């Protein structure tokens, strides 16, 4: 039996892309279809952003584009343009991001920890636009991020903890 891969892809060759990552301009010479995830991890050596599904199903690769959470595995580098990209490595530079990281430490949220960068990116985006989220708000904002260890109880508590820290 022949198992062919029918969805042939175009190989366009490489191009130079200048993108703003964590406040710094970075230039990469790469195929424009390369997802931001792999540019971050393999080209720029920013390995905090994780690969989990490659299909925007798990949220492990969540980064911020102009402050909004996006899935880096579905974001071709050519589409980034002038947008500001922020990753887990720099999210602590913002006051909200710092509070979120501290809450995660305080409540000892992680088990394996693999999803938590993505969780923190989604939580920080939530708290930045909504400093006092309800349980429903948390459900809506966080349900794109899978925690295989199911630390959801503590993620929810940590978001509320960070919200409280932010209100002081």
């Amino acid at each position: 039996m022949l198992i062919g891969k029918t969805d042939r892809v175009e190989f366009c060759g490489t191009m130079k892309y200048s993108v703003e990552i964590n406040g710094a301009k970075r230039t990469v010479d790469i195929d424009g279809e390369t997802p931001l995830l792999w540019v971050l991890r393999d080209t720029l050596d920013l390995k905090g952003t994780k690969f989990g599904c490659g299909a925007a199903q798990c949220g492990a690769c969540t980064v911020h584009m102009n402050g909004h959470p996006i899935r880096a595995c579905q974001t071709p580098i050519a589409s980034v343009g002038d947008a500001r990209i922020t990753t887990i490595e720099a999210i602590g530079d913002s006051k909200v991001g710092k509070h979120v990281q501290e809450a995660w430490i305080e409540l000892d949220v992680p088990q394996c920890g693999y999803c938590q960068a993505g969780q923190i990116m989604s939580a920080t985006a939530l708290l930045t636009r909504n400093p006092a989220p309800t349980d429903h708000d948390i459900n809506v904002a966080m349900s794109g991020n899978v925690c295989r260890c199911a630390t959801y109880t503590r993620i929810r508590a940590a978001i509320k903890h960070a919200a409280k820290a932010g209100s002081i």
Partner: protein
Amino acid sequence: MLARRNFLKVSLAAGGGMLLTATLPAAAKAATLGKAGTDAVALNAYLQIAPDGLITITAKNPEVGQGVKMMLPMLIAEELDADWSKVQIAQADLDARYPGQVAGGSTATPLNWLPMRQVGAAGRQMLIAAAAAQWGVPAAECETAPGVVLHKATGQSLSFGALATQAASMPVPDVKTLKLKDPKTFRIIGQPTRNLEVPRIVTGQPMFGIDVSVPGMLYAVFQKCDVHGGKLVRSNVADIRKLPGVRAAFEVKGGTDLRGLLDGVAVVADNWWQANRARQQLDIIWDEGNVAGQSSHDFAATAIRMSKGRPESILRRDGNPDAAFGKAAHVLEAAYSYPFLSHTNLEPQNCTAHVKDGQVEIWAPTQNPAPGAALVSSTLGVPPTAIKVHMVRAGGGFGRRLSNDYMVEAAWISKVAGAPVKLLWTREDDMRHDMYRPGGFHFFKAGVDANGQLIAFRDHFVTYSQDGAIAASADMSPAEFPARMVEHLEFGVSMIPLRAPTGPMRAPRSNAFGFAFQSFLDELAHASGVDPVQFAHNILGAPRLLPDPPMPRQGPGFDTGRMRGVIDLVAEKSGWGKQTFPHGTGMGLAYYFSHLGYFAEVVQATVNATGEITVDKVWVAGDIGSQIINPLNAENQAQGSALDGISQALGQALTIDGGRIVEGNFDSVLPLRMRQAPPVEVHFLVSDHPPTGLGEPALPPALPALANAIFAATGKRIRSLPFKDHDLSAAA
């Protein structure tokens, strides 16, 4: 310069107890040093103390999210009387000095509870001996406070850091002379203790297998046949070599061991995305072999056919169940089933390997490095002494990483490519090339007498065989509950031949049997008009210890009193029987003993008019012995285990069709998400038994407790997983 001649080794013999030798081999000495600053002194294979008092404790086991990298050092630090704020933790490599470097079976606590404390106590005794020698006082007059040795009579004190060098030259104490602390005086064990890794996790530091980077490293993908064990006939691999970024592409001829190196095509490139993109251009002709009957649909039909005949073998028979059914006041028959499951570690399988000049260096997120090294040794034909395995934090284990197929693939690809290689699977690779939790079918019949006592029970268990023998983790113990609680009982087994590889998944066997047996027992309780808590009491009877039957997984037996203890505790905490719920809301109870832990759980669930299930709350009660070592992690593990069970119950199943797994990603295998996750309240019943593990035993009761809650809410009994396949709209 501190003397390093007098290294002492206090390590553990494989069967427990301590192995004491006076010197470390030169190579091991080098491995011990270098992590805690150049002037740190090793007291033994686990302990280094620097002059400034910084203590580095080596955690010997693989960390996969269970918290063992904290737990083992806490045991050592407690008996050392360390100042925990001065402790840092190092991860051991695979190293012959350390026994039992495996993450599996919730065994780390029971196996290490005593020996790790002895390691710490030996270190403490050597520090005391050093201080006593300096002061010229009897060691017996000295004591310790966190990080210091004291001689109260003369008011002298010396820090551990100041004593370390001299302590290392003190005789290693005989294990029989070690004095362990009275648990009442524990300062570290039993304290909610934050995981020292979390600051690195929340700032995105590279620490997982997928994050490993070595100089000159290339990136690899490996395409195998989606029919497990299919053989490669030919491919267009020559075309793949011309694609952008590709450094190497080659066919691999593997063996027949589904847990070893299999046939496939490797693509190696400058970055992973290029490798995977090039792979999408592969055309491969496979010889899939015979896949007749290898589909979930066929398995179900075969199981039903088998259920109508006698079992192929009898696992256990007590009394005469057939005669006893005739005397029962209530007789019930029901068929239960559950599907194959993938472990779905969020970090897909990966491994970095560098094969050079006959030496193999491996960085692996594995639960079980020693068999991995053996597999690499036999497959590549290199001696075990030429293989170095670094254990890297794994993004989830759940039993998947007890197998080391990704390790041997990475090593082979590195060898052929002639470069260090990081192999990374896609999610689809991961789901389609797992060692699956085997599905199964239970055809039950049981009888309850007029007093609400279970008197007769029969299970015809239809499971799977592989190459003529029972498939891995597809077997059942003759002591499976409620065996030994019922006068007339028969467990029969029939087997369906299976090609897909199976293996342990978190709480293996128990994760499936819990659902089937505990749901059916709940059916029996309701059919008999007996409250499920009372029905459990009736089955368990008087508190007593039932020894396990002789078999490989033998433990200390089953204590009916401990089981009843957690049932009563969870009933109390959940307010069982004290509330009246509207139609559509209900509570379910389930209880299960696995991995030496006794757990009972209550789930409250609501089913709305559209049939949507909301899990309102979960109560967990567990008895894992006399000591909760780290309550902060224990709660997290118990919550996660219960929700893992809920996740499986609600949304997870694999379908086999034509010998291949149909599902490939989280759009079809649905993991639990935040919006579905209920609060989980955890209670531990501290009992006078040795502490046991917590990676697994809180999982099994969660699934049946939810199924039983749905029955209580709606009157609808769910007898197959997952629940997403059931339409509950008419029931609510």
